[in-house]
């Protein structure tokens, strides 16, 4: 499948990086965070970029997964794996129940409703202190282990989280290039025409909303085990905005764009120390600038620019040879 070419390149890059730079902080520590962010951005992109349904509450589902795993393992002594499944189950129930009323809204209203959802989840995490540890967070979360292979080093976490990212990317690419993916894009393009072509738009929106939430929940569980500690700060409204910024920066409706956006916004604060104080301001500025100058995002925008440059040259040559201008009436 031709659309998987980029996926193979991504796989090879991800496999080779730790071999070339073993024990490099930027690969196995920041890289893991970037991969985790990429999982979230890719899932949000399915909802926002492809289906055109904005969500300003994606961090909420990330939080549900993280806290489900944290609480079940530390307070109830569950094994981490079934705790992940429980997190997914809870997320599915919450997302499915809320999808219908929320996704009937459009545009600003949908943005406001998802914003509210994210904030409510965050408030619950802070207030239900008996379970969640409140604003202080919850520590002592056990790590994952797989058939006796304990995930206890940076490199092993790199392997686990990057593998999950690759699986998520593979699934997302398959969906996008299929009947279901076309249904998503169609509903973005024209809801009424999508319905008329036989697409159940309500079910399709619900499906992609739940799917995106499940992926975020899985990422949340992994995050909890990897950090061994969770606090509500990681799942705040600002993190939702950061995720939206990643998608917009990389390019809406482009899975690779979402990954690139996640990598850039994870590495920037690491490389620029000033970033820390002005983080929210810089994200806001990036969002504004992207919307004004490169609404398709870096990845798609640069792709188009490249194509236009090569096409312009080709057209110029054609015109010169044919002794006429332009491409003719298409």
């Amino acid at each position, binding site marked *: *499948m031709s659309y998987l070419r980029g996926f193979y390149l991504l796989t090879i890059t991800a496999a080779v990086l730790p071999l070339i730079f073993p024990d490099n902080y930027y690969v196995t520590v920041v890289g893991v965070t970037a991969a985790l962010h990429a999982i979230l951005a890719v899932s949000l992109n399915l909802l926002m970029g492809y289906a055109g349904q904005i969500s300003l509450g994606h961090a909420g589902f990330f939080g549900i997964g993280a806290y489900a795993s944290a609480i079940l393992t530390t307070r109830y002594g569950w094994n981490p794996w079934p705790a992940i499944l429980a997190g997914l189950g809870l997320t599915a129930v919450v997302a499915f129940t809320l999808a219908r009323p929320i996704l009937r809204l459009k545009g600003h209203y949908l943005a406001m409703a998802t914003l509210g959802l994210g904030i409510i989840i965050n408030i619950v995490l802070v207030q239900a202190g008996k379970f969640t540890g409140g604003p202080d967070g919850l520590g002592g979360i056990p790590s994952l282990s797989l058939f006796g292979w304990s995930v206890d080093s940076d490199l092993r976490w790199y392997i686990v989280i990057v593998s999950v990212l690759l699986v998520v990317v593979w*699934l997302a690419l*398959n*969906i996008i290039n*299929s*009947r*279901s*993916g*076309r*249904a998503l*894009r*169609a509903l*973005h*393009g*024209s809801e*009424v*025409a*999508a*319905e*008329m*072509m*036989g*697409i*159940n*738009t309500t079910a399709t929106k619900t*499906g992609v909303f739940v*799917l995106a939430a499940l992926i975020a929940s899985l990422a949340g569980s992994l995050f909890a085990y990897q950090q061994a500690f969770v606090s509500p700060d990681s799942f705040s409204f600002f993190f939702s905005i950061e995720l939206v910024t990643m998608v917009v920066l990389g390019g809406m*409706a482009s899975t690779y764009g979402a990954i690139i956006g996640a990598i850039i916004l994870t590495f920037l604060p690491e490389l620029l120390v000033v970033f820390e104080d002005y983080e929210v301001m810089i994200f806001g500025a990036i969002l504004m600038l992207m919307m004004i100058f490169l609404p398709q995002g870096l990845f798609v925008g640069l792709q188009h620019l490249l194509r236009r440059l090569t096409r312009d040259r080709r057209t110029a040559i054609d015109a010169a040879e044919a002794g006429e201008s332009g491409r003719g*009436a*298409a």
Partner: protein
Amino acid sequence: MALLKVSGLSKSFGGVTAIADLDFEVPEGHVYSVIGPNGAGKTTLFNMLSGIYTPDEGSIRFLGRDIVGRLPHKVAELGVSRTFQNLQMFFNMSVLDNVKVGCHLRTKSRLWNSALRLSSTRREEQQAELWAREALHFCGLDDYLQLDADALPYGVLKRLEIARALAAAPKLLLMDEPAAGLNDTETKAMRKLIRRISDTGITVLLVEHNMGLVMDVSDRILVIDYGSRLAEGSPREIQHNPKVIDAYLGGEVEYAV
């Protein structure tokens, strides 16, 4: 046999009557046109036939089944497809993908089969591609396959909408002003295309303002004014109906057939 039977259909919006007690039947295999001045309620009628609006009163029977209250995708499942007066293209997709969406009901892959790229999905993808190419070829759009929909000129988009609707292999095709905004050459091509669609056995329900085209392609014509029936008959009868000439054509027959 009547493929579509509309009886006692009414719809008003906040006291303004759009359609009032309308009856008509569309026989299978016909090109049936609905004409009337702007605001006569033609698009409202189409929106009710396709499930976008729910009528206040009356019934719409398609293949003997009452379709009132069905959502558009449920109406589409029965074999009704349509084009739109104001283009409703998927401008975020390629030409080929636009038409592949038309194949939605002829394929079955669910989200999870697609995500895992099972062999059944792959087979279906190839089938959908074939159907989409066929529909594009039928509408003379072979040259545009790989382009993005938003790169196409208006006249081509009008045909692309038809290709998308045809890819659904409908029994009834609702065409809302397919010739609006087209130049003479394009209109002539559209006239041929409608005839060819009809030749494949698809019943066509047409709303159109270009009288030359309507008189040329229609088997029967329904004239509505202020939401109710003014006249119905063959193109010949309609052209010579004094009520139609008075009310709709302003007392003067200007078109040549």
